[in-house]
């Protein structure tokens, strides 16, 4: 059988590309995380631990970058911010998306027209979303000021990005705007697979719509829902562009996510080894979530 060779030949280029553009750099940054590299002092990295000098008893030096991170309040702050951001943005966007999907699923001209709008936010560059939302929150001539001037005057003078909680709400808001429509589309796709006869049977039995939703609809879209939740969680953990453009981590460090913390430590404070170590502290939960995601995706197999 020539196929025996062919099938490996066909996957080889893909494996090669993925290995060199994803695994190689991942390995490299893992290696760097055990080295000291301060761009403000030297062009090359240097070892944190060397057998000849430090001896086996001091092998803990090797983990200096990691230990340093665990001791840093700002690291823990960014862990906290990332968790809050992830949990709220996932809950809000998945919740809203599910509701919208139920509303938009029935079809009809009106609903189909609105559905075509759903793809727009997702196609938009996150960096552009960040910039334009910052513009909308501008306290002297932003959209929100204009909006609240007319509707809720007391809120017109609120400095959205100058308050720790409001800035977080703004950040979550921009992320929800970006993702909810996309998740809605995914869930509408999921709703299309709900068995019609089961729904009708329940209806004939006199079940109300809430019962139908809980007993029939929800169980059958559960896999899609789970995929949506995990996917959104992963992207929330990764999110960088908006926080960089919208709040830049502020006020203070109130919206500094892990990705932002890594970026600043690496490219603003020139501490590359340390930044690599913190990236690995971000990669570890990602591995867990990715595994969970893969489990869910291949649930049916």
């Amino acid at each position, binding site marked *: 059988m020539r196929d025996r060779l062919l099938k490996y030949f066909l996957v080889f280029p893909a494996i090669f590309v993925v290995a060199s553009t994803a695994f190689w750099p991942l390995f490299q940054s893992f290696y760097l995380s055990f080295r000291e590299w*301060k*761009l*403000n*002092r*030297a*062009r090359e990295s240097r070892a944190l631990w060397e057998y000849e000098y430090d001896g086996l008893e001091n092998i803990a030096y090797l983990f200096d970058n990691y230990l*340093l991170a665990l001791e840093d*309040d*700002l690291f823990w702050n960014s862990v906290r911010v990332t968790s809050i951001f992830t949990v709220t943005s996932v809950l809000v966007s998945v919740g809203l998306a599910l509701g919208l999907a139920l509303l938009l699923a029935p079809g009809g001209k009106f609903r189909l027209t609105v559905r075509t709008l759903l793809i727009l936010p997702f196609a938009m560059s996150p960096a552009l979303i960040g910039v334009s939302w910052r513009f909308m929150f*501008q*306290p*002297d*001539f932003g959209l929100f000021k204009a909006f609240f001037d007319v509707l809720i005057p007391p809120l017109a*003078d609120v*400095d*959205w*990005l*100058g*308050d*720790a909680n409001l*800035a977080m709400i703004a950040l979550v808001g921009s992320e929800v705007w970006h993702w909810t429509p996309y998740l809605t589309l995914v869930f509408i796709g999921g709703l299309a697979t709900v068995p019609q006869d089961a729904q009708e049977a329940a209806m004939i039995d006199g079940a109300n719509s809430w019962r139908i939703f809980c007993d029939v609809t929800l169980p059958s879209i559960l896999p899609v829902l789970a995929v949506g939740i995990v996917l959104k969680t992963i992207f929330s953990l990764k999110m960088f562009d908006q926080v960089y453009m919208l709040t*830049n*981590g*502020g*006020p*203070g*460090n*109130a919206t500094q996510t892990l990705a932002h913390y890594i970026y*600043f*430590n690496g*490219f*603003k*404070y*020139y*501490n590359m080894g340390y930044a690599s170590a913190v990236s690995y502290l971000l990669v570890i939960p990602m591995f867990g979530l990715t595994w969970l995601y893969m489990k869910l995706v291949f649930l049916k197999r």
Partner: protein
Amino acid sequence: MRMKIIISFISFCFLSSVAGAGDNVLPYKLKSGKPFAGTTLNILAVVTPQFKSYELRDEEFESLTGITVNWTHIPFVALQEKIASVGVAADGSFDVVNYLDSWGPANAYWLESIDGWLKRDGISMDRYPEAFKKSAMFKGETLGFPLRAHPMLMFYRKDLFAKHGLSVPETWNDVASAGKTIKQKEGIGGLACYFGADGNRQNLFLWLNYIWATGTEVFDKQMKPAWATPSGLRATRDYVSLHTKHNICGKGAVSNVEQDGRIQFAQGNAAMMPVWWWAYSGFYNPNQSKLTKDQVGFAGMPSYQGKTVTYAISMPYSISKYSKNKEASWEFMKWLSNPELDRRNAIERSVRGEKIVNNVVTHKSSMADLGVNAANDNIQMAALASLANSDIMPQIPEWPEIGDLLSNAIQKASTGGNVDKLMKDAAKKAERILSRAGYY
């Protein structure tokens, strides 16, 4: 006898050749004879009209030396990362780089010291005000020329101050009371505040004015953080209280950065704005501002507890150690930093048909120049006064990180946080960074 004739003949020839050379001695102490003709230099500079006009004027240099100059203009927001990546790339792709003074130390290991050249060509850094000169130095070596540098001035609305019978504020207390009056009577911000922290540490500008006035330094002699002393904390509290207690700021005081503050002032939404002198022309440029020239006044910075120490900033040009054309780069630096160019660039309002408005000069001679002052409403005189007692941010490689700690602490304090606790906490963290960097 014969010998004498020969000697005198030789010396005649020698002298005449010197005189001959003297006929085409180049200006700005440039090397004659175009030894670097055909070289191409790559320059990385920040986006600003001042440097745009240097680019438009570089034909003079190119025809004098035969060197070609390529400019890359990077917006300020992206500059810090770019400078760092030029250093890491280390491929000589840029011969001359332009950066903010406080990033100098972090990049000093790949910037060429120019002391040798300065001495060789008889150029003295004393042509610059002390703070500017200091801003281009690291560990006793001169790394470059401060070609764009700014003192701070207090801009205010002449019309509104006259309308309410207010006099130009001389102390920060005056600022607070004038700000209150204006906020009450005009309904706009008294002061355009910028407590925002965006990684450029702009909310430290005024903070430094405050703490230096009390004699507090950022670091003590042992390089320990020194801002958390009782007088330093009090100065910080007073700085933050402009917003938290006196409530004289315009909208968005906590999230605004310097640019936002300038727009607020230019759009008539705040009556005072302490900021760099270069902002002046923008404040009455009809494309960006609602104000006319008659409405915009400027004065020296207010004093705190009877003393004024102002913060000054500069953007030096340095030669990269990785450059393959260092001597040619030095020729370029000599031309670029010549006092005549400095002067002309603040007087002429059009360069090769392009409209350029710039009031920034860095030579002491230009600041005292009557022509320059006449063209710019004497803002250079005010600048000289402001620079008489001024200082720059600490010049250490770790400053970006420590500066951000302070910047974030002050932004948090301006949202109503506990100043003392935040500043002490920042001091503790800074000490940890410095100790890791091997200062003690």
